[in-house]
């Protein structure tokens, strides 16, 4: 295993870079960015992003934490990992995007609550049943964030039901108590870190 790279204090105003790196598992090498732009050029949703990943990493290094955590960039990441495999510096870019999303939720800084709302609704179902539940997820998310789109989604939902591709009730795993205890402990450990 390679030695874990640590940011140089001189190029990390306010310690934001160090915080992002510490919250991302493994040797994520975020401080090794050479600003080449391979990431943004590889990104399928790059044109929709307020900041390309390259610009976002420059902002992180400059300590612009509020701009970074308000940016829509991590929320438009589709986890395709093109940037990750193309990065000449082997930065774990997709993993950094996950870190930024969870930091933005915790700081309450994201402007469009819809993508985060989707993630949170998904998490709620998993924490309640141990499995995801498509029908509940789609209706609850759309009711809360895009109520007007529900009518437009109806044909798709009916098509799913007709083809036997959607469950009407969620499935609950047997070890729900065990899973609950594990997740509670994990949250406690995350908060303490």
């Amino acid at each position, binding site marked *: *295993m390679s030695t874990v790279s640590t940011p140089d204090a001189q190029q990390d105003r306010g310690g934001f870079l160090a915080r992002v790196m510490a*919250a991302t*598992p*493994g*040797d994520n090498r975020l401080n090794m960015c050479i600003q080449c732009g391979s990431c943004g050029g590889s990104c*399928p*949703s790059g044109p*929709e992003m307020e900041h390309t990943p390259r610009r976002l990493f420059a902002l992180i290094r400059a300590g612009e934490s509020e701009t970074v955590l308000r940016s829509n960039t*991590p929320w*438009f990441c*589709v*986890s*395709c*990992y*093109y940037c*990750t*495999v193309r990065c000449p510096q082997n930065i*774990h870019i*997709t993993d950094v995007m*996950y*870190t930024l*999303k*969870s930091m933005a*939720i915790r700081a309450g800084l994201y402007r469009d609550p819809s*993508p985060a709302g*989707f*993630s*949170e609704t*998904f*998490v709620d179902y*998993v924490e309640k049943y*141990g*499995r*995801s539940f*498509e029908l509940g997820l789609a209706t609850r998310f759309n009711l809360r964030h895009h109520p007007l789109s529900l009518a437009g989604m109806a*044909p*798709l939902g009916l*098509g*799913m039901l*007709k*083809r*036997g*591709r*959607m469950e009407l009730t969620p*499935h609950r*795993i*047997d*070890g729900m108590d*065990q*899973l609950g*205890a*594990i*997740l*509670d*402990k*994990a*949250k406690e*450990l*995350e908060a303490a*870190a």
Partner: protein
Amino acid sequence: MKALFYPGCAMQRNARAYLDSLLAIRADIDLELEEVADWNCCGATEYMSVHRVPAHALIGRNLALAQRQAADTKLLTAGCSACYLNLAKTDTQMREDRKLEVTVNEALAAGDLHYDAGSLQVRHLLDVVCHDIGYAAVKEKVVKPLYGLKVAAYYGCQVVRPDYDDRWDSHEHPTAMDRLLAALGAEPVDWALKTQCCGGHMTVIGPDVAYGLIRRLVHGAAEAGADLVATLCPMCQLNLDAYQVEMNRHFHADYHLPVLYFTQLMGLAFGHKPADLGIGKEFVDAAPALAKIQVEAPPEAKAKRKRRHRPEDGLPMPRME
């Protein structure tokens, strides 16, 4: 060969055709699957975005349960790209990051579980079929070659990237599924978009972005002359198939490119009946494409509508017949 099997939530319902076709062909390719008992959701890409450590603990429970069951095999396989990647990611990151390993195991201990990072071999189903079972063994079982069927092998993102264990010949232009399709007698088409994104969760949170990505893929495969697309992931199938209808509406386009799982095509080549392979559950009807290889797909489930009885003493109406 034997493998522990993590089906994942999608295979239970939305991607039932994937599970059914896998179960139908497992004896042909001598693959014994043992389901991980009482597995939970892998968290997809959503849990990781909200809570980092709990996301790894959520996946850790599945790994720990699988390790407990791993008496005569270390191989853990999943058919869904996101499930596979999550299992592989937690395993890899626990191996590489000692602090994470300790934290995840501390959380697992609250449920009397433990996972030794690196003790299982996490592999996607396509990887197992192509690299362990092998093209020759697959070819041997073909009784109804898919001659004349042009197929676009679509890999999507998360199976070939980030590819922690170097399983694939390329992260951008892999050939494993193409070779598998050729072994079945089909003609894999040459196209450039085989590992481009299907839109992932953008179909829900940012449909305009997703429709653009879906159109690019469907158009690319159609332009390459494909009769259908073969996929290895429930999310890719859902986005390219069910949302193809929405995408057509969005762009006033008229694409009809069916999307089947590679296991369904294996099943057809092995001589199984289409209905046993979940064929007919797709939104974009695969029947016209399959007619090329003399396969009669079961008719699409249509809501039965009874013709309303017209009373004889009604107003005179022009007769159409």
